[in-house]
């Protein structure tokens, strides 16, 4: 078993993929907690698509080195654009975001469609190439993670206040729009860092799922953060192992990025089933206790009894 979990990483390309996915997993999960609190899953999705034209233009101008600057620029613009759009009332936020997203994506598609290797480029961009990351990519990801992590750490109190009590934050004199912009820019950075490795479309899984699963497990914010940050890299590792094992030993080709996401989704499914079971058990226990109270202690003082049947009534009250 340990062989299975460790042997694949004797190959240098697997080691690089592991380092990349561990950094990305931890970073995205940390940001994901805030994304979940603020319900910004759609914004994350929108940004993943919006960086597409930046990637294309960057690649046209500077080759592979141009991808990250191009994507970063467009992601920053899109995040700022969204912050501005969110403050207008003329069009609902989700519609604005859907158009921002598809519009940017369409620009990318139009640009790419003028090139020869149209579909290959598009596929690589959408699905990523986790196994071909090189040392430069890892450095870029690590630097991005460090910057984003520092920003989050410095502004954690304000961002939390904004998430739980926007009016309170406003009343306390914090510039809410600036906090929104900061968070949107951090999300944009994560998206850009993850684009090359797991592809635009699967970034959202790395961001959203660890936090959502952790939230189902525990209610305290610190524990949610810790569990999420552990879950992200762990599923990255498991996903890589599964992908390697399936491809090498079982002759089933399984894309690495997709395997990571499927592991994440399975974990979420398990946790969801567990929490559903737990709440069902708690509810039936409560119902039993109530029944007993209803038949045994109903004559107790100060408890008015409905004629129709106390059980129906109490259920309705719950």
């Amino acid at each position, binding site marked *: 078993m340990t062989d299975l979990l460790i042997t694949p990483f004797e190959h240098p390309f697997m080691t690089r993929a592991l380092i990349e996915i561990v950094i990305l997993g931890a970073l995205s999960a940390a940001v994901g907690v805030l994304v*979940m609190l*603020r*319900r*910004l*899953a*759609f*914004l*994350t*999705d929108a940004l993943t*698509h919006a960086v597409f034209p930046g990637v294309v233009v960057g690649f046209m101008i500077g080759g592979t080195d141009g991808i990250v600057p191009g994507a970063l620029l467009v992601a920053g613009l899109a995040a700022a654009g969204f912050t501005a759009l969110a403050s207008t*009332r*003329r*069009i*609902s*936020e*989700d*519609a*604005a*975001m*859907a*158009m921002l*997203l*598809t*519009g940017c*994506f*369409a*620009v990318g*598609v*139009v640009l*790419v*469609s*003028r090139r020869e290797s149209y*579909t290959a480029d598009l*596929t690589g961009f*959408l699905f990523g190439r986790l196994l071909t990351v090189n040392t430069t990519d890892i450095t870029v990801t690590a630097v991005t993670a460090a910057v984003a992590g520092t920003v989050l750490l410095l502004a954690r109190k304000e961002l939390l206040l904004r998430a*739980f009590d*926007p009016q309170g934050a406003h009343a306390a004199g914090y510039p809410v729009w600036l906090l929104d912009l900061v968070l949107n820019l951090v999300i944009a950075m994560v998206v850009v860092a993850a684009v090359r490795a797991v592809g635009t*479309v*699967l970034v*959202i*899984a790395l*961001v*959203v*799922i660890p936090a*959502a*699963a*952790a*939230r*189902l497990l525990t209610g305290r914010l610190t524990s949610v953060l810790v569990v999420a940050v552990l879950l992200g890299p762990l599923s990255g590792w498991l996903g890589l192992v599964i992908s390697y094992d399936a491809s090498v030993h079982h002759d*089933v*080709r*399984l*894309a690495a*990025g*997709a395997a990571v*996401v*499927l592991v*994440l*989704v399975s974990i*979420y499914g398990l946790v969801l089933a567990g929490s559903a079971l737990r709440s069902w058990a708690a509810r039936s226990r409560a119902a039993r206790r109530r029944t007993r109270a209803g038949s045994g202690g109903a004559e107790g003082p100060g408890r008015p009894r409905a004629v129709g049947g106390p059980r129906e009534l109490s259920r309705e009250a719950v």
Partner: protein
Amino acid sequence: MALLDSLGDSYTRRALVEIVIIGALCGAVGVHVVLRRLSFLTMAMTHATFPGVVVASLLGVNLVLGAGLFGVLVVAAVTTISGVSGAAGNSGGVGGAGAGRGGSGGGRDVSTVTGVVLSGGFALGVALMSAQDGSNRDLSAFLVGSILTVQPTDLVVSAVTALVVLAVLVALRKELLLAAFDPTALTAAGYPSRRLGLVLLLLVEAAVVTSLPAVGTIMAVALIVGPAATARVWCSRIPTMTAVSVAVAITCGVGGLAVSEQWDVAAGGAIVLTVATALVSSLVLAPLVGRSRRGAPGGGRARSVPAVAVTHQG
């Protein structure tokens, strides 16, 4: 105009007919998507139909059929996990005001669950695709669409779907309007609001799947949301909004096709960009026109409706 020159080709004519049908369909359905803020769910549907497409191409059955079946599964998954359907599905919204937080515990709100289902579905599609041998060319076409290759049978399928969806929309117009603006009253009046929400989601799904061949999975959202959002800027009554939305969708579709023929760019991208241009110019122009019209009796009413939509979010 290159579009006029190439009208002699049967494929250009078919593309034109297809975009008109799809424009009418998406424009009409989009009104309800925009009013109920279901954009993200629509987005999730388009992404999550992807594994259906891959499975269908592996099995050799109709791609649209596979996509449709999988889309229904996605709708079912999101509604069961988050415990809402349609009408309530908008409560979280984006940048949400924190409303609806009490409803279902954190980690299970609509926005998060939609994100999970979306990425899960897409990853499944990618995994299946990577397991199969090379021929992912037609699948890439499915991602970004290729309206110029629609077949006569596709046209028939689109036309029938459009007719059915429009008929349902007309038949249920009163209930859908009530559900969009006052879901509580709908339930109180004794309508089966859950089932009604589900019907609406299925209609949206039908529109998504039908427009897949034309603009692809990702940009189908633009064709649904864009025209309706444009119409929303100008109109405050649902019948006029629907009419304007359909008109905008058809015009932008044909315009995008013309742009694509003229400068030889991807048709799907060109159509989406035309829609985006229409929306942006409406957003810019509306305040200017509105200012000159402020004295008119209609001006006040038009202004009050966004307020309704805003309170509804909370």
